């Protein structure tokens, strides 16, 4: 779901946005999306496009479990913070991927760009109720592997089952 639409849905965030990555998803999310999709086509056609950085200037920061939270700007996956982990930690009993992809996201507090490592957590099934996010700012296909978010980054681990994804700020972009 396009990020500029997120704002429209803050109040119904519980229903979640996003596309399915991997296996079957919860009905709630999907059903919501189905409806939202229809609505949004209308909305997008009828209303002006929201500016890209609108959220950065919003008065209230988004919660960490919202797909619009700034660190999640290029995250394709289930939030580990809704799977038993946190923003930066894998849920207990899983393993953190030894490789990852990286996004460049703007922190609305200082308006600076940060490098965010999106590590997958591995070796467990997905949590059915996990919040699924699908954002792709700066994302590129597999020819820029380090920016690619459609692949299972558990690929280099001993246990390769995809569980969830963390957003770890590992550097400043410049």
């Amino acid at each position, binding site marked *: 779901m396009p990020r500029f639409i997120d704002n429209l849905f803050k109040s119904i965030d519980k229903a979640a946005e996003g596309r399915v990555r991997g296996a079957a998803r919860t009905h709630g999310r999907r059903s919501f999306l189905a409806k939202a999709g229809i609505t949004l086509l209308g909305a997008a056609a009828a209303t002006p496009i929201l500016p890209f950085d609108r959220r950065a200037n919003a008065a209230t920061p988004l919660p960490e479990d919202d797909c619009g939270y700034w660190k999640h700007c290029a995250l394709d996956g289930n939030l580990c913070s809704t799977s*038993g982990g946190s923003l930066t930690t894998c849920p*207990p009993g899983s393993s953190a991927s030894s490789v990852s992809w990286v996004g460049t996201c703007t922190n609305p507090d200082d308006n600076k760009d940060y490098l965010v490592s999106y590590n997958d957590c591995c070796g467990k099934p997905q949590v059915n109720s996990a919040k699924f996010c699908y954002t792709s700012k700066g994302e590129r296909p597999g020819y820029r592997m380090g920016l690619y978010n459609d692949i299972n980054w558990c690929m280099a681990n001993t246990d390769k089952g995809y569980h969830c994804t963390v957003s770890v700020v590992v*550097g400043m972009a410049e």
Partner: protein
Amino acid sequence: MRSCTVLPFILASLALPAAAQDTFTPEKLGVEAHIAEGPNVLVLDQSWNGPSKIDVLGADEGLKMKGNMGPGTTAQMVLSRDGKSLYTGSVYMQRFVYGPVTVILHEWDLATLSRKREFEIPTKFAHVESQPGLFALSDDEAYLLAQNATPATSVSVIDLKAEKAIAEIPTPGCWTAIPATGMKFTTICGDGTLASYAWAADGSFAEPKKSAKIFDPDADALFANPVRAEGKLIYLSFNGNLYVVDDSGEAPVLAETVKLTDGVIGKWAPGGSEAIAYNAATGKLFILMHSGAKEGSHKDPAQEIWTVDLASKKVVGRSPAHHENTLAVSKGDAPVLFAASEEGNLTRYAYAEADGEVTLTKAGEFEGLSSFPALITTDF
């Protein structure tokens, strides 16, 4: 939280400006070493294609997701008495939906949601909806009793120390293995009897000791999974009667029956996969009930949860339910109930007793928790 290898692949491929790095403290990637403290509720989300899941949630009103454990297809589960180890049995087909079958017994550490060990158990293991009586720890927790079905029924006695089945006890026409005192289990049979089976450490086992006919599987069938209360087994019938069975002797004996719905209008009856739960501290039974009952409605979702006082054998509470068909209750003095619906929602109920009447009040809900919540258990 332990720290972890951080991104050798990525950091090598990105040229980070050195200056910026000087003024910036990177966050650390880690793995939670253990789940947050506090009592837990475990919900088995059983899959018939691919992995099943056991979701672990904080048991308070927030029902916070703490993580999961991932066994195979048509998983069964049982929690050790101390709440520390979860045992699961599940099926692995080589090609997920076809090919040779391996059945794995896992022991998981609840505190860390990690695998402690796993080993193979006999492949006759039943591929069936999760039920407590199909995968149970023996009285001393040294053995695990695993239901087989080919569809001929038998029970594998698994020595948890030796990590292997020491016996396959044929239980023709019978279903479940409910641990009794000692190295013994009780099973319920299609001829209306119950039977006691005993085994020995060397894998030998005795002929079954059969009860007299206790119930009529046509007219008033029993749900296969009883609760144990005050040493006895309490079976619930499709028509809403309790059959109290004493399995402490050689053969099971019917001690008593209790009618719950006599004089109640609306054709109420129990329904669901796990329709009955018992809290020993309060001596209360809890039962998922629906109205308009008829032949075939015994799995219908609940409209009410009835509370039955075991001492007085009376219904002492009727509280609104939320379409659930699986129920569990905590062990302590202040019972907390958890019930799951076919839609995958978990509802938490608080218990209150006043003037001899019990009221269950919805106090917490997790919508969209599971695809197929088949069994619930608590560690408190």
